[in-house]
């Protein structure tokens, strides 16, 4: 048996082409000892759900800067549930207005991070989310 590592998918849905934030987060999670699957730009919710399924990830992190989070995030959650992966926590970062956070959480998003969040806070949140998922297995 080897030590189980957190498998986290970092995905960039939507049409904007800025993935610096996603790469910074991916790098920070790597440096925290995780296996980070990075899928690149312009992913549809369908592509993200399929990658999450094949990669059997523990956590999904979305980077959304386009303002489309209120459409993209619930759609992804719906697809995950349809695939039997409703238990996989989804975290969102990017440009998420504070007033949208309650609605996102009500829809089932585990955490939402705005600009200026430290990478340490993101790493800690991913660790906690994975631990909660594992505890339920």
């Amino acid at each position, binding site marked *: *048996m*080897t*030590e*189980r*590592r957190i*498998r986290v998918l970092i995905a960039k849905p939507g049409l904007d082409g800025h993935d610096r934030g996603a790469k910074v987060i*991916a*790098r920070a*999670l*790597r*440096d*925290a*000892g*995780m*296996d*980070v*699957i*990075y*899928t*690149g730009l312009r*992913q*549809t919710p*369908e*592509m993200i759900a*399929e*990658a999450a*399924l*094949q*990669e*059997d990830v523990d956590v999904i992190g979305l980077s959304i800067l386009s303002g489309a989070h209120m459409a993209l995030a619930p759609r992804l959650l719906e697809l995950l549930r349809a*695939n*039997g*992966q409703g238990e996989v926590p989804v975290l969102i970062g990017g440009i998420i207005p504070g007033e949208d956070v309650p609605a996102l959480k009500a829809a089932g998003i585990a955490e939402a991070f705005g600009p200026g969040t430290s990478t340490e806070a993101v790493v800690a949140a991913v660790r906690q989310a994975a631990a909660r998922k594992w505890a339920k297995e």
Partner: protein
Amino acid sequence: MTEGDLAAVRAGDRRALARLLTQVENQTPAAEAALAALFPHTGRAHLIGVTGAPGTGKSSLVAELAKVLRRQGESVAIVAVDPTSPFTGGAILGDRIRMRDLAGDPGVFIRSMASRGALGGLARTTADAVQVLDAAGFNRVIVETVGAGQSEVEIARTAQTVLVVEAPGLGDEVQGIKAGILEIADVLVVNKADLPGAETALRALRASLEIGHSAARRDTAAGWTPPIVATVAVHGQGLEELAGALDRHRDHLRASGADNARERARLAGDLESRLRGALYQRLLAQLEPGQFAQTVDKLQLRELDPAGAVRQLLEAAGPLS
């Protein structure tokens, strides 16, 4: 893993398959049992290895090759290995970036793996993951290694057909006659063949083959000279020809009986490394707690030499129980 889970894996259920691959990667007892149960159902897929230096375009090539194979009606599983950081233990697995065109195709399954400290270009559990995908009924299983240099030749044991990918501008002719990954090539690819220097790279490869293809793969030396295929993966050029070369190699293996020889060598090698691991674990279990660390202390103080330390520990462990 229940009987039902195993049946689901064999039927190609993606969720069950993905979960088993995680178990395999973590080398759990459940994975061991599942691998044992699936073993009789392996040996059917064409196992294709893709290796080459970082930046030669392996991931794009694999994606385009998968598209061609899909058009031929083949189902395709891809295992893409990326390196684990030796400092933090983490990994960025980014091969899917180049494989986005394959998303949504139910005949394709892609799994990323971190190398987790193994140095041969694959993870320790890659061969097991390949077995699972083989048992799940995929016609072709493509394994993409970490960006490999001259000694990451583990793929030669795992795959039946090894594709070595070069790109223009990576080195001169002498690189081609050094030992290393060129020796394990069943098919050579010069990718990015639209870049300047492609002709030089093709010529250098041809020249090194003329000097003589290596004896490293003696089983196929008779009657098989690795074809050299020029591709531009990002434009889908040369991929039909490449798929044809892979098929010809598989046919050659079958017709010459080399597939059996390779299979046997692979099983023997696998058995050897498993035995080595099991013996080591058993030996450790028979030592006093802390004895290993104390021996390291003595080495560091130069009170003992490494070979002497081995003798001492073997003696202390006594006969295998």
